[in-house]
């Protein structure tokens, strides 16, 4: 199966580029900081970290991954292999999402325990991570260097992350649910604080749809990039 081989290739590439070492260090730092938090803060702070970790890491890592492949010219070769655009993209999404799930489980177990809705947490992390990986790809595809990526991603990041502050409570704050990031954050929070079934289902379905739409869009821009010079 090509997609499995693409996944293996990505995992090997990420490992050799030192991505996993960075991620392990990051996870350990989270564990230490979250571990010393007062108990009454934990159910508020931990979901926030668990939401930000896969989303931010997915967003940063996909940029770094694509830029490294671009700089080394590998992308130029990948587009002349039988690997389909969607397979290439899904391999990236799967590899980074698996990483996010492992980190989420480790951080939660080490700093919070078992008493939460694991199913909702994992669903929230998967859908958030995959959305942010696709979202990061939109920025990365337009850049030629890593520095350029780090500058260009700022407005994109603010656009998608700022609405999350609506959770503090604004008038008409339900309007912010249109942002997939807000839906993801509410799912992760719901895993810790509780959420009614209908809301959880609605956020999940909405986030899934957002993933399908962005996946389709990213596939198109990847194809365009492949035929206009990777």
């Amino acid at each position, binding site marked *: 199966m090509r997609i499995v081989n693409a996944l293996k*290739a990505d995992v090997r590439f990420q490992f050799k580029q030192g991505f996993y070492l960075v991620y392990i260090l990051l996870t350990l730092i989270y564990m230490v900081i979250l571990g010393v938090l007062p108990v009454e803060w934990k159910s508020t702070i931990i979901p926030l970290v668990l939401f930000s970790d896969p989303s931010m890491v997915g967003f940063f890592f996909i940029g770094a991954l694509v830029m490294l492949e671009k700089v080394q010219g590998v992308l130029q*070769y990948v587009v002349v292999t039988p*690997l389909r655009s969607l397979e290439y993209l899904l391999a990236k999404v799967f590899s980074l999402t698996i990483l996010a799930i492992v980190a989420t489980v480790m951080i939660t177990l080490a700093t919070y325990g078992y008493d939460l809705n694991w199913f909702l947490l994992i669903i929230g992390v998967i859908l958030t991570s995959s959305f942010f990986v696709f979202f990061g790809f939109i920025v990365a595809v337009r850049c030629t260097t890593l520095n350029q990526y780090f500058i260009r991603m700022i407005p994109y990041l603010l656009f998608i992350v700022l609405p999350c502050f609506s959770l503090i409570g604004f008038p008409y704050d339900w309007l912010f649910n249109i942002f997939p990031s807000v839906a993801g954050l509410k799912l992760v929070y719901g895993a810790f604080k509780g959420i009614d079934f209908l809301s959880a289902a609605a956020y999940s379905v909405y986030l899934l749809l957002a993933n399908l739409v962005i996946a389709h869009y990213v596939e198109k821009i990847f194809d365009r990039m492949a*035929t206009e010079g990777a």
Partner: protein
Amino acid sequence: MIKVNGLEFAYRKSPGKAIKGISFDIDDGEIFGFLGPSGAGKTTTQRIIIGLLRGYQGSVDVMGKERIMWGKDIFEKIGVAFDFPNLYEKLTAYENLALLGSYYKNNSLDKDQLLDSVGLLADRDKRVEKFSKGMKMRLNFIRSIMHDPEILFFDEPTSGLDPVNGKIIRDMILDFKKKGKTVFLTTHNMNEADYLCDRVAFIVEGTIPVIDNPGELKIKYGQKSVKVSFNGDGKLQEEFFPLSGIGRNSRFLEVLNQDCVRTIHTQEATLEDIFIKLTGRELL
């Protein structure tokens, strides 16, 4: 194998056309050289045939089907080695072949044997970032053939290689021809084209003024004479003799009979001379 007819192409942000209505055919088992200076349209044409540029006008038929009608499956049948060694720097030579090789249905060629064929077997487990440019180019080359494709696209395949390794690559290209593979060679190295190609096309400013066999071109555009260098009157001398009636040329026979000839050369043109003559351009 490849039939290009009336091909035109313009880049979106460029005012003029990069390719201006070129036509050529490449037969099965042929080594076809595409020669021209930088910016002439060599790489653009190659990228259109490979499928990396769309929006062309005219027809590009590859293995019996218009190029834009092919999906990604075409890459099972074609191999591409770009002029830039685009490899995973942090992975070893073997890992580079194994990972990208796994995307092909035909992944049966022995990778160690391929590495050995270009003198890289001893470096199979070394990270590519530690390779010289020549080593990377050789790895780049074998990566393009590891799925045993029918058509091979090589862009300056011996660029950056020392003479020994350059010869290894040239011999391998000739070997593909023996196996019936078709080779599309893009280069500005006229000696290489002369040595390898069955036919060459000169491309200048998006047009092809001539397509022919290198041997025919050299005879057609060369001087029909012989240059003889010989020792005479205590110094090295040179004289030119027309080929026509040379067996009856008394002066030529006299020089030969003096037993002091150093060299004799027919004055066929080099491909480079012909290129400059026909296009008015240098090959840089």
